[in-house]
């Protein structure tokens, strides 16, 4: 259990003054993760929001070494960096134990960079891959990704006269990563900061590829006021829209059981991307279906915890 009193004594490795939108969940995730990471740590990032708002030349928000190459290459570039580190370590050029963290969005992870992460995990490169998941291609102006939830409006799954936003549920990335038998995998969100920093510690201590899927609300893409970012994150956990759990040594553990599981409307209502669902019966049916999917997923996760739990 981390204590804020201790965490706030750690050096800020992600500087203020970067160009993220007000209320950006992704910037908060990066900051929290770096506060919790043991040093020295080296970062890798693909093209995306984080890269754009943190690294416009001649400025950099990173107080750690950081490399950016292309959009689909977080895991493959990390593979090369880690291979180089292994070489230097074996040759005695580097004495310290260095940690490696790739920070990628859901576009760079679920979709265009999917092959690279699968390859890197199969090869067992030792690094932490963090997906800061804001459920869409926000950097290019809010297009749907395979992390975009059922019913959401994006510019490429627009709510229209006939089609009411995205008609498919999101890809279950955690299960796909777990199928790679990672050294550690966890899912969390920024409102649960203690859960997040605990998982960062576990992931970086694990001997092999580890993964964190961190839900980060995006005021621009989700269309909620910037001061509600943490509230949205909390509601995602409290509605079980975003289950908080981990997978370690073959065992599932749900890390956060809401005292009262809230209906998904409470998460959806403040967000403009779902506003079309709150007009008329068609929308009601979609919300009901979203609720059914969430309940089924939550029940399945409990079954997995029972079957493969502690």
């Amino acid at each position, binding site marked *: 259990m981390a204590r804020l009193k201790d965490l706030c004594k750690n050096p800020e490795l992600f500087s203020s003054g970067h160009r993220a939108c007000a209320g950006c969940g992704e910037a908060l995730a990066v900051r929290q993760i770096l506060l919790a990471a043991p040093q*020295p*740590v*080296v970062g*890798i990032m693909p093209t995306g929001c984080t*890269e*754009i708002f943190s*690294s*416009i*030349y*001649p400025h*950099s928000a*990173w*107080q*750690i*070494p*950081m*490399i*950016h*190459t*292309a959009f*689909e*290459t977080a*895991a*493959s*570039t*990390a*593979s*090369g*960096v*880690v*291979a*180089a*580190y*292994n*070489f*230097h370590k*074996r*040759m005695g*050029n*580097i004495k*310290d134990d*260095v940690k490696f963290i790739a920070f990628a969005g859901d576009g760079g992870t679920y979709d265009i960079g999917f*092959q*690279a992460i*699968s*390859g890197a995990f*199969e*090869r067992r490169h030792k690094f932490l891959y963090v997906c800061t998941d804001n459920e869409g291609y926000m950097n290019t102006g809010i297009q749907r990704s395979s992390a975009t939830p059922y019913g959401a409006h994006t510019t490429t799954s627009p709510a229209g006269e006939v089609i009411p936003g995205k008609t498919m549920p999101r890809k279950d990335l955690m299960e796909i990563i777990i199928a790679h038998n990672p050294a550690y995998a966890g899912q969390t969100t920024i409102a649960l900061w203690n859960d997040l920093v605990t998982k960062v510690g576990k992931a970086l201590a694990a001997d092999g590829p580890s993964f964190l899927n961190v839900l980060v609300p995006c005021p621009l893409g989700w269309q909620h006021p910037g001061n509600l970012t943490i509230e949205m994150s909390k509601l995602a956990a409290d509605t079980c829209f975003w289950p908080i759990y981990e997978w370690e040594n073959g065992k599932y553990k749900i890390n956060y059981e809401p005292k009262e599981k809230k209906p998904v409307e409470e998460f959806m209502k403040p967000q403009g991307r779902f506003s079309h669902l709150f007009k008329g019966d068609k929308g009601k049916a979609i919300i009901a279906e979203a609720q059914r999917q969430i309940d089924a997923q939550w029940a399945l996760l409990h079954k997995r915890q029972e079957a493969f739990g502690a």
Partner: protein
Amino acid sequence: MILAKTGNEALAYAMKQINPDVVAAYPITPSTEIVQIFAQYVSDGKVDSEFVAVESEHSAMSACIGSAASGCRTMTATASQGLALMHEMLFIAGGLRLPIVVPIASRSLSSPLNIHGDHSDSLASRDSGWMQFFCESVQEGYDTLIQCVKIAERASLPAICAVDGFILSHCMERIETFDDEPVREFLGPYKPSWNLLDYKKPILVGPATMQDYYFEFKRSQIEGMNQALPIIEAVQEEFKQKFGRGYGIIEEYGTEDAEAVVLLMGSACGTMREAVDAMRNQGKKVGMVKLRVFRPLPHKLLKETLAKFKTVAVMDRADAVNSYGGPLFTETTSVLYDLPQRPKVLSYVYGLGGKEFSLADAATVLEQAHAGKKEDLVTYVGVR
């Protein structure tokens, strides 16, 4: 030591002697053997390299970039679709000025699928900021790959060392190899000017730039390419001093009194030498100009060299599908344009998809060059 080796075996052997810190590679015909022979060297403990058997060429080049940025001498090997899949990352390696070295067994590009030798792959990558060397023989491939490492590191530019797929990659040749130690002495240790893993002095590699800086970065990269030519010359000279074999950026054959020459790259130069000999025996003043370095384009040297002749027949083992000849043809005409008296330039496209380029074909081109004219602007040699 004198050894019988195919092109792929010789390139893999050179890689063993180079002993790169990291190799990240994916197999593809006809360069697969380079990767698999090297993997065996790794498994047998003959090299110190970290070998990363990536899941695609895109990831191969991305991993190479990560490794080279982390202070490691880094190599891969590929061809054809593999180089095409790397395309996006080639520009990033070039822009980051990372001295990654890649032996290539040149091959055609799909569609239709074809696994045989031509220069479509490298020439399609010509604007990616990579130096490109085209080799005539297996021996030259072996020697050039070793030189490339030194040139790339001194110029801070990545380099492609191309041998023609199958024609050289699978052709066994008697080659003179060096001992490991002199090769490693020749190269010395890799000392990059910056290193991502220098965590006590954190740096950001690969920033975003806006209108205020992008052009300046590219201009500086272009200057790096300009400055690579004297570096190539110097390393060729150092190589000659140490190992006794000399190479030129451009090499001439039978040109002392020649009025017409053929300009070309790669293994077809060997065929052309024989054809030139035969024609010269008939008293026809023809010769050959071999371009060994396509990038950086040695434009001044090329102009000086070609200005002496009445006719230059330019042979491309790739077509840009632009209705105006291959890449080497258009670059040659552009290089010659501001000469007060320009040679006549003829365009030939030959050998696509490994189509045989015979002595008779070479003789036809030389005859037409000697005559100084032909009917069509672009001729496709040997097409049925």
